[in-house]
């Protein structure tokens, strides 16, 4: 079939029609609704009686005092009123319903290893938030902790950062110094009342800038956990909440709790270190929260208040670390790192469960990794940490952040606030999602936290330490991971008993300070 050619005239005509159509369509845009209403009032004639008194002048002739009867006429006028209504136009302005908030989608990305946690965040908390804020859609992503950091950083590099993300508090300053996260002071000031029960909000403060960059979602601290049967068999009473054991008391007790296969204790003649049946103390040297408590207990620090200089060269710090190492190599009440790795091969909580260790400074968090009480024939108890020169333990939090590049910071902030203020969500983040204590202190009561299905059944020691201010926050800084790796490598030379702690602390100070100096220079922070 032959097609008719497109002539210039046809083209122009088509263009004209198209333009007209576009104009007409453009006229159909969104307008304010002004409704003209013609109100026609229909009335019925209703007789209305009105009494009108007619006053008529009367001539009064008084000639004699003979009364003359005069007829008085009273006229009654019945007024018939006809109301003629004119049609009048009443303009009624109908105000449209308030404009619905613009639909927004935010992306939240959290690290998590536990599948129950992942499901919980995705299915429950987000659904609850979206029900409360129908105009906000939450798209969430959970990444295993091991892959978290590289993934987040590559997303930041690609300018595709999630609106909200979670991080360890200790690495926050590094992100702040690089301008990756948004300062939240204005939001926090505006909603101060709402987040008043989140005292750990201060953990989201950046020491260097003095601004808030994070909203705490949880608290993770250490307390002393123990195998109750072992303590009972040794006739040892756990320390009461208000009176932590001193180092000396602890040493005395763990010595009793440590014995070899022949039942001899450290210090006894013939004690066989290679065949220890049960260790009283148990130390880990591969995570900072378990390395530094003795430093804090001895009034030491690992970094100064300005987070600029390492402080491993402080006498108190060195003495704290020395006391720790002495538990392994002088008092022989704790396994060395090699033995520790062997004991722990059954998992993070294994030392208490497999009957190899009696006491263990343990993090509250990752609750689902603990065994069900019904699966054990003994209790795992908990008590407050130790006191060298002061009662102390280590503590850190997870912070929620808004990416600086977020297109929806307001909604991102709303989401974060919801997680800590919606009591059910905040509580379940603790009980179901394994993130340590909820940030909301209103929930820090045994009744609110509810019966735990896993060990430790009593978390009072953790709450008590927090209440008493015995929890010492880990010193954060702009180069945290690199700084930590640098000093830990040097510390391990002494925790593996290859050199004395006095030599190690010199190296720890030197190597970690080098990292800080370089990073401050790189970031031009001075």
């Amino acid at each position, binding site marked *: 079939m032959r097609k008719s050619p497109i002539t210039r005239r046809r083209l122009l005509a088509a263009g004209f029609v198209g333009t007209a159509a576009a104009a007409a369509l453009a006229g159909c845009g969104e307008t304010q609704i002004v409704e003209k209403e013609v109100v026609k009032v229909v009335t019925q004639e209703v007789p209305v009686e009105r009494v009108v008194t007619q006053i008529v002048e009367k001539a009064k002739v008084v000639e004699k005092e003979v009364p003359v009867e005069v007829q008085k006429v009273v006229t009654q006028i019945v007024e018939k009123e006809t109301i003629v209504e004119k049609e009048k136009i009443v303009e009624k302005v109908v105000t449209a319903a308030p404009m619905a908030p613009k639909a927004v989608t935010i992306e939240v990305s959290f690290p998590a290893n536990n599948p129950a946690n992942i499901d919980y965040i995705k299915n429950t908390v987000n659904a609850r938030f979206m029900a409360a804020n129908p105009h906000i859609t939450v798209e969430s992503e959970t990444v295993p902790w091991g892959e978290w*950091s*590289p993934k987040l*950083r*590559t997303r*930041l*590099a690609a300018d595709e950062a999630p609106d909200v993300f979670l991080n360890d508090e200790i690495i926050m300053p*590094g*992100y702040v110094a*690089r*301008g*990756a996260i948004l300062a939240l002071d204005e939001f926090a000031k505006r909603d101060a009342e709402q987040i008043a029960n989140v005292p750990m909000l201060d953990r989201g403060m950046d020491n260097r800038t003095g601004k808030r960059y994070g909203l705490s979602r949880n608290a993770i601290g250490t307390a002393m956990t123990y195998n109750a049967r072992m303590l009972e068999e040794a006739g040892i009473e756990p320390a009461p909440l208000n009176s932590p054991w001193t180092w000396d008391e602890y040493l005395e007790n763990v010595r009793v709790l440590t014995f070899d296969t022949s039942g001899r204790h450290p210090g006894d003649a013939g004690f066989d270190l*290679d065949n220890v049946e049960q260790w009283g103390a148990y130390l880990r040297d*591969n995570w900072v929260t378990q390395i530094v408590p003795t430093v804090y207990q001895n009034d030491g620090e690992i970094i100064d208040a300005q987070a600029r200089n390492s402080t491993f060269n402080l006498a108190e710090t060195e003495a704290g670390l020395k006391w720790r190492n002495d538990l392994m190599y002088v008092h022989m009440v704790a396994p060395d*790192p*090699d*033995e520790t*790795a*062997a004991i722990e*091969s059954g998992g993070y909580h294994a030392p208490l469960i497999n009957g190899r260790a009696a006491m263990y400074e343990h993090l509250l968090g990752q609750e689902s990794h603990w065994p069900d009480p019904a699966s054990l024939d003994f209790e795992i108890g908990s008590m407050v940490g130790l006191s060298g020169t002061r009662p102390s333990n280590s503590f850190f939090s997870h912070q929620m952040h808004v990416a600086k590049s977020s297109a929806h910071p307001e909604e991102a902030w709303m989401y974060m606030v919801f997680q800590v203020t919606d009591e059910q969500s905040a509580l379940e983040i603790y009980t179901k999602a394994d993130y340590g204590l909820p940030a909301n202190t209103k929930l820090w009561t045994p009744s609110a936290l509810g019966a735990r299905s896993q060990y430790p059944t009593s978390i009072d020691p953790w709450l008590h330490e927090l209440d008493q201010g015995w929890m010492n926050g880990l010193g954060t800084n702009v*180069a945290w*991971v*690199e700084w930590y*790796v*640098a000093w830990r*490598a*040097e510390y*391990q*030379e002494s925790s*593996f008993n*290859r050199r004395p702690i006095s030599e190690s602390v010199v190296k720890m100070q030197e*190597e970690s300070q080098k990292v800080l100096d370089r990073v401050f220079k*790189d970031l031009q922070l001075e």
Partner: protein
Amino acid sequence: MQVRGSGGAAAASAGPVNPLRGLRQFLGRNIIQEQLWGLLLMLPYLINLLLFTAGPIIAAFLISFTNYDLIRRPEWLGFENYTLGATDKQTIAAFKNTGYYVLWYVPSSMIISLLLAIGLNERIRGITFYRTLFFLPVVASGVATALLWRFIFNKRGVLNWVLDLFGLDAVQWLGFEMALNSIIIMSVWQGLGILMMYWLAGLQGVPQHLYEAAEIDGGGRWAKFRHVTVPMLTPFVLLLMILGVIGSFQVFTASYIITGGGPGYATLTLALQIYRMGFENFRMGYAAALAYMMFLAVFIVTMIQWWAQKYWVHYE
């Protein structure tokens, strides 16, 4: 009927024909067409090569001269990252550990796998089963096997249990002194299967008549191996050495999973150091510089191997 090749009126009227000219035209057009088609078919690969291989290589080279933390704009540093790489305690430890690993892993894995291949080249009962058995670690997940070996190296693990059976003292397999050796042991175990397959291919490619000739000359088993098998396998030795060196410079999974580079820096390898610097410490520029330093080291070693082949590799 016109007879082919006899010409005809039309051909005669067109004047003399140069048969080569038409052929050239035909061939020329075809060659161009073929080249175009060839290029077109290669295009997806070329695009991939340019965008995802050459691009990152060039980008990494440029980044290696900068201070780049993935968040802020890169800042030009010149050779600072390279000079730091030569003086930084951690990186020096990583280079030393990697060198040690290469020196021990490559020869030991090649020798053990060759012996294994010779054994499995015989006609013995259940040969397929044994070959499969030795090849299994190759197809197993690197992370899973590393976790498995962590348990084996445990102070209370299988290895020390075996030592104990023989009345020997337990070894700190993952302590400062032994940790890197333990990683080499694990890597050798894991790499045996694939090396064995290469060797088997090589062994089965040795011409039988050479063995027969050696037998006629009175050569025994050892003489045949020494004077026939080994020379004939030298091209394989070269290939496996080059691949082994390149691969072992990149060792990562074992040290990342089993020891995390520790204790101290005892098992910190170059690849792990690059990963840590780039993805844990915001130091992409430094990581890129380390990657190029590693490349340079691999390149130099490979060139030496390539150059030295004329002295010992026998091509038939």
